[in-house]
């Protein structure tokens, strides 16, 4: 589905080994007539892996909405008790509630997919082996639990 052929545009750093870049020689004439398929706009529905990817990307949009909600809440907190009560009662509005429930699900999708991916970025080498993915992931879940506990005890007033 690629639409490019031949040499790619080279960044200025690429050609420093010499004036003439090595590679294949250009043909004087050609019988080539390559067929170039195009990527469909709905490619992300094509298989399970792509759909999971699409869900992961969408999850952050929903989470983003809730961040917006929190910003409003924080402003209300600054404006006084009445304002805060208004924001809290706004959360029970059916439309808002629906969004919240969706946000819970999506934030979990977001978190779990992220945790799953972290071992690819964080690679801890011990001798001739890498620390098993499990431990990297477990560490992340642990941090999530710690934060949950802090918030729980703080809001619970303990």
């Amino acid at each position, binding site marked *: *589905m*690629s*639409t*490019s*052929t*031949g*040499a*790619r*545009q*080279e*960044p*200025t*750093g*690429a050609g*420093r*080994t010499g004036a003439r*870049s*090595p*590679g*294949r020689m250009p043909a004087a004439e050609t*019988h*080539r*007539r*390559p*067929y*170039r*398929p*195009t*990527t*469909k706009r709905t*490619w*992300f529905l*094509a*298989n399970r*892996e*792509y759909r999971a*990817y699409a869900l992961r*990307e969408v999850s952050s949009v929903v989470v983003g909405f809730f961040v917006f909600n929190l910003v409003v809440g924080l402003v209300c907190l600054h404006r006084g008790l009445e304002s805060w009560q208004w924001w809290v009662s706004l959360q029970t509005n059916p439309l808002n509630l629906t969004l919240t429930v969706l946000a819970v699900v999506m934030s979990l999708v977001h978190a779990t997919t992220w945790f799953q*991916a972290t071992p*690819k*970025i964080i*690679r801890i*080498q011990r*001798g*001739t*082996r*890498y620390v098993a993915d499990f431990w990297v992931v477990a560490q992340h879940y642990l941090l999530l639990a710690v934060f949950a506990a802090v918030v729980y005890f703080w809001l619970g007033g303990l």
Partner: protein
Amino acid sequence: MTESSHGHPGAGASAADGVQPVGATAEQPEPRPRRDGAAAGPEAGGTITLQVLRYRPDREDAPYLQDFEVPWRTETSVLDALTWVKDNLEPSLTFRWSCRMAICGSCGFMLNGEPKLGCESFVRDYAPGPLRIEPLANHAVERDLVVDLEPFMASLRAVQPYVISDDRHPVPEPGNRQTPEQMVAYGQYSQCINCMLCYAACPQVGLATDFLGPAAVTLAVRYNKDSRDHGADSRLPILDNEGGIWPCTFVGACSTVCPKGVDPAAAIQQAKGATAQAWAAEFILPHRGEGR
């Protein structure tokens, strides 16, 4: 290959086009290797319909699928099935292959929409069929199952996939020491056979035409992580580039399809991290990298 229409006979039909599906009746197959009875499950076999994408630039304007009926046994690889078609039914069917042991990287195809090496995919896993065989996605199709590899070859050259030494680190004679620990740091990334399955799996290769792509970036990272190499600075302008590593959105399909467990997705994320660090370092230490 969404454009392909099943069964379209093409502009100028070749000799074998007249009969569809063809095969099984033509000639008995060569004896196919089978599993050692002691270790494998029960013998299986039969015939399967291969739906192979055909495109001959001198004849057709668009690809189409042609059916071939092929006998198979437990040990018949998809590549075996294709060579059987070429030898017995349709000599003009064109595909690349060589080692038939998953190391030369020639025979990548889309099998029922998934990028796979033909030589280590077995017909038994697709029975009773039909099995759709198409050229690797995200590539221009030169002919039948042969795709254009020149864009990759240009990317490969661009990432400077060789040891770069610098004046501060003279190469020791007769050679470097490198501990097994230091080898592990890049070992996995040195296993790439350039089979292009990751390019076929990566939607960003299809969407961003100037993306270096999974395998090329992985090879850059392979050398960056090699204790003998001092070329990371030299490769930075290629990686930190609109068409370098940034089109990657970490779909992760490259690693899923890699037949050698190379994990290009990990390599690219690590390249992103290293590039961000280099970027920050240039802010803090403005002279870093200058005059080289």
